[in-house]
């Protein structure tokens, strides 16, 4: 089995979100970039699956659609333990465009299990994994909180609206994963960082797929009014405010 993990390059989770003066683009000034947190968990679990497979998992590779400035993030994925990396050299226009590009990587590499994080922390589309499955005509499962391989059998824990399910599904498969898939993301060690420099990072040019949506403008939420402080000895005032002012109860 060959596993591919799709990686998105996102601003560090503590980034103060700002836009340009026209409000048409995210302001990248001074931003630290990281592997999208869910993708990092996906990679961690993929490596655990490979290590526990007794050789049945041949490789865990990563792919990303992005310009060259995303390479440090991709190298980090290699340092964590991915075998090879692929970068499609294009600005990620929208989820449809990205999934279409990733489909080319999946096809040429013959991957039978693809892991994608459930959403990216920047555009929050929750779309690339499901779209990739449709492009490939692969099976897909979303909201995956656990995945195990037993011979050719794939067992998955999935969250549903109102509970959890355990299911079996066959490869080729795209699993869209969320929290719970791995406990903590792996952190690269010094040996991993050294080895990552030698690992192959293949760059390809995008194929002609048009985006279906475009991000026009951005807005920041309206600033909140100051918090009203309530005396801890007078909790009844809170109830009065929630009932009569906020009309929340």
């Amino acid at each position, binding site marked *: 089995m060959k596993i591919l993990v799709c990686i998105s390059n996102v601003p560090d*989770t*503590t980034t103060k979100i700002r836009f340009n003066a026209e409000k048409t683009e*995210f302001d990248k000034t001074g931003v630290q970039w990281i592997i999208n947190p869910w993708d990092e968990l996906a990679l961690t679990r993929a490596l655990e699956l490979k290590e526990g497979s007794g050789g049945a998992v041949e490789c865990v590779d990563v792919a990303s659609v992005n310009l060259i400035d995303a390479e440090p993030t991709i190298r980090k994925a290699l340092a964590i333990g991915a075998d090879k990396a692929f970068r499609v050299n294009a600005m990620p226009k929208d*989820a*449809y465009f990205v*999934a279409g590009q990733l489909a080319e990587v999946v096809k040429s590499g013959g991957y039978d299990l693809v892991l994608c994080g*459930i959403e990216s*922390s*920047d555009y*929050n*589309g*929750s*779309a*690339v*994994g*499901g*779209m990739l*499955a*449709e*492009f490939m005509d692969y*099976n*897909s*499962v*979303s*909201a995956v*909180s656990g995945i195990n391989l037993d011979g050719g059998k794939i067992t998955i824990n999935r*969250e*549903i*609206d*109102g*509970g*959890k*399910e355990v*299911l*079996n*599904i066959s490869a080729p498969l795209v699993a869209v994963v969320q*929290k*719970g898939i791995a406990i903590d993301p792996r952190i690269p060690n010094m040996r991993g960082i050294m080895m990552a420099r030698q690992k192959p990072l293949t760059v390809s040019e995008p194929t002609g797929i048009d985006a*279906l*949506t475009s*991000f*026009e*403008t*951005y*807005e920041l939420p309206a600033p*909140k009014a100051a*918090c*009203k402080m309530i*005396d*801890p000895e007078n*909790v*009844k005032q*809170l*109830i009065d*405010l*929630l*009932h009569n002012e*906020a009309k*929340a*109860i």
Partner: protein
Amino acid sequence: MSVLVYTENWDGKFKKLSFELVSYAAKIAEELNTKVVAVSIGNVEKAALAELGKYGASKVIVVCNGELNNLDNKAYNAVLAQAAEKEGANVIILAHNNKGKALAPGLSVKMKAGLISGVTGLPSSYSPMVVKKKSFTGAAFANVKVLSEKSILTLFQNSYAVVEKNIEPSIEEFAPALPAINTQVTNVDKVTGKILLSDAEIVVSGGRGMKGPENWSGIEELAQILGAATACSRPVSDEGWRGHSEHVGQTGKIIAPNLYFALGISGAIQHLGGVSSSKCIVAVNTDKDAPIFEAADYGIIGDVRKVLPDMITAFKEFKASN
């Protein structure tokens, strides 16, 4: 032309979310001068199906097939795509929940329909379709334009108020062709007797300030009094005090209830990303400089273990007299 809405059911019943979706679809259909067609998959009684008309569905398409008892993305999307084609739907609306997120992307590719996921309000333009969605995990909104002829929108729970239209809908059975079912569900563990985080209008959430899982009975009691769901911050789920499914925040669940209680939660930026869309936030924390007070509407500076019992007493009194 029509606006198609997928109304999911839970053990044969619709929820407020279903009615929000139909109400939202009805407003869009009105703007486009067309009608709403709801798609229901599974066994739902006729009276419940007709209720979708109350919120604006002119027609309800019912697909009953034992093969569809469990969610199989390919099979469900085959149903939705065939229904959309049959009804000439140009706009398709799903919930931004686990099922909607599982289906909308595949449907988008299948139908070459631009997907805007996680919308929180009506389009600002209908031709082309432009809708505001959450981005940067609640820290911003993006106005997204659909470039294709057809569009798919997934709507956040609790972001559109239900509106009654009182239409008597036609109910029509539909038997679309299904692909082979590949998802074999072997075990289902449904949450019973508790209000789901995704459905809750009020959420009571605890953080590290609760000091340990043994103090959670207060949170559960307050939640019970208020008919609320319980939640927690990331350190709490990482420590194993509560399950991962209760974690709200950037890497956990993103919620937008009417009322959110942050008890002993300092409000790291990652936590706020998951809850900042709540309509009203109440925070209790010992640290007056905790960032949660910048996001909160009402705050109490104090030890939550002391304040919570007083809150429980006061809310009990309130509920008894209201």
